[in-house]
């Protein structure tokens, strides 16, 4: 482990020394021309950053364009499917395959009862509910048992175990599941009634191993949660839909994901070595060649952080977790011919996880420097404006496609004005800490009981 760290530091030092060497060589030319070294350095750095930001901007515009086109194609494909849908393969209600709904919970006493009651309302004839209490220290178990006792038609099993993390709880649920399909969700999630009805038909395609659902924000109560609801809508209606068009959704969200039980077993269930077990599992499925679809009509309503520090805690864990999951499959990064689309998926994840936050922060620092030293604040404004225009266009498209509240488009400006700057800082710090291999804890969010 220590050797690994030394290699990392040594490679960084090597790059740094190399750059210094190049600058020193340039210094001779400066001396000959009687120029200032600091002026040369400034020119070099500013020119380098300008070219880099231009390159990043091109990548960003391409990313938005490709995602909007692909997600629109997926939207058209879904409309066509719905229009020509002849009904399920299993026409009889009684012959619909059994689904086990696994709910891993840890100290969810405040929200578990409404979440379970919502599950009892699901419009599907053949399902069971398994609540896995991961060693809660509050009344989660008792409250789950209280709902289980009142349920006459839908079997609810509540099991309790010593605390071992979400991955272990989900694996326990998988072992106990009797259904052919498993729906994994979070304890603080509320599913819409049609969830199973709209997801199960996807599995008529034998190459589909899992279906990712749509996640929406329930507690739209302040500016933080409203911006997050736009973020979720954009992330799902644009990115996830576009990925679904090529059947390569890269993250099956924790709040709603349906799997073939056989596929879960084939990949060995969830691993314990990352803080984004959902992302890790999705990558394992993709690496095994399984296709993953996205179903926008299956909606999971979730509670999002309504305070700044909780939001930062969440983004910190997500960033490090995604980097950990990507690092596990890093061999694929260098084998595009063998790995095909999976290679590009991993590169894209690195782009979103590292390059994007680093580049937007770098852009801000660069333009602030230019504004303060050269008095060209308009450059910062135009940089901000072009990013804001991209955000507004994407928000408008997603709001239309998802038939969401048009007021969300307004939050695209707020998103660019302050939200993304604040979250990007925590993402950059999280990436640096992950690179340094700093230890971390799960960082469970406090629930407010909005379900």
């Amino acid at each position, binding site marked *: 482990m220590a050797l690994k760290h030394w290699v990392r530091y040594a490679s960084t030092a090597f790059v740094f020394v190399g750059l210094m060497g190049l600058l020193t060589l340039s210094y001779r030319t400066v001396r000959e021309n009687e120029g200032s070294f600091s002026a040369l350095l400034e020119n070099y750095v500013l020119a380098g950053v300008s070219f880099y930001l231009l390159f990043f901007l091109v990548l960003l515009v391409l990313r938005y364009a490709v995602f909007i086109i692909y997600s629109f194609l997926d939207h058209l494909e879904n409309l066509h499917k719905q229009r020509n849908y002849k009904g399920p393969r299993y026409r009889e209600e009684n012959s619909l395959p059994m689904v086990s709904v696994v709910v891993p919970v840890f100290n969810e006493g405040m929200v578990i009862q409404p979440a379970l009651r919502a599950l009892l309302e699901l419009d599907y004839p053949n399902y069971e509910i398994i609540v896995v209490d991961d060693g809660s220290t509050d009344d989660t178990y008792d409250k789950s048992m209280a709902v289980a006792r009142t349920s006459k038609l839908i079997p609810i099993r509540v099991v309790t175990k010593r605390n071992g993390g979400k991955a272990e709880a989900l694996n326990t649920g998988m072992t106990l599941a009797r259904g052919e399909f498993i729906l994994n969700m979070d304890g603080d999630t509320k599913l819409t009634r049609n969830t199973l009805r709209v997801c199960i038909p996807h599995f008529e395609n034998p190459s589909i191993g899992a279906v990712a659902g749509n996640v929406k924000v329930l507690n739209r109560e302040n500016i933080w949660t409203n911006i997050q609801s736009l973020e979720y809508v954009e992330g799902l209606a644009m990115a996830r839909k576009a990925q679904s068009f090529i059947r390569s959704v890269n993250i099956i969200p924790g709040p709603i994901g349906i799997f073939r039980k056989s596929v879960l077993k084939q990949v060995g269930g969830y691993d314990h070595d990352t803080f984004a077990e959902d992302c890790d599992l999705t990558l394992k499925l993709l690496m095994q060649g399984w296709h993953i679809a996205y179903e926008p009509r299956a909606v999971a309503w979730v509670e999002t952080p309504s305070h*700044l*520090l909780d939001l*930062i*805690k969440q983004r*910190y864990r997500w960033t490090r977790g995604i980097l950990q999951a990507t690092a596990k499959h890093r061999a694929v990064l260098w084998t595009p011919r063998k790995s095909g689309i999976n290679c590009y998926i991993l590169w894209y994840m690195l782009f979103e996880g590292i390059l994007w936050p680093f580049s937007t*922060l770098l852009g*801000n*620092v660069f*333009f*602030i420097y230019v*504004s303060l030293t050269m008095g060209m*604040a*308009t450059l*910062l*404004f135009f940089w*901000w404006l072009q990013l804001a225009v991209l955000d507004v266009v994407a928000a408008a498209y997603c709001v239309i496609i998802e038939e969401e509240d048009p007021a969300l488009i307004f939050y695209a400006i707020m998103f660019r*004005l*302050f939200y993304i*700057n*604040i*979250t*990007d*800082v*925590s993402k950059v*710090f999280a990436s640096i800490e992950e690179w340094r291999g700093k230890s971390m*804890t799960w*960082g469970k969010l406090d629930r407010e009981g909005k379900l």
Partner: protein
Amino acid sequence: MDLISILATVILVTTIGTMVIGVGAFAAFKLRDKRKPSKAKSGVLQNQAGVPDPIFLKPYLPPELEKAALELE
């Protein structure tokens, strides 16, 4: 001062402000994350091998059974 300059100044101030808030909020998150209740120093007795000794709790008996058990003793 034209409109673009005013807007540019607003964006400049906001960008600097939010980046400072971002750094401050991250520092606050790390500080809050580090603060945990200290572990009890001498709660669990350990044997020589460092394995915690088992704690035997008094089993619960309904009052009538406890009375009968006492009578038997």
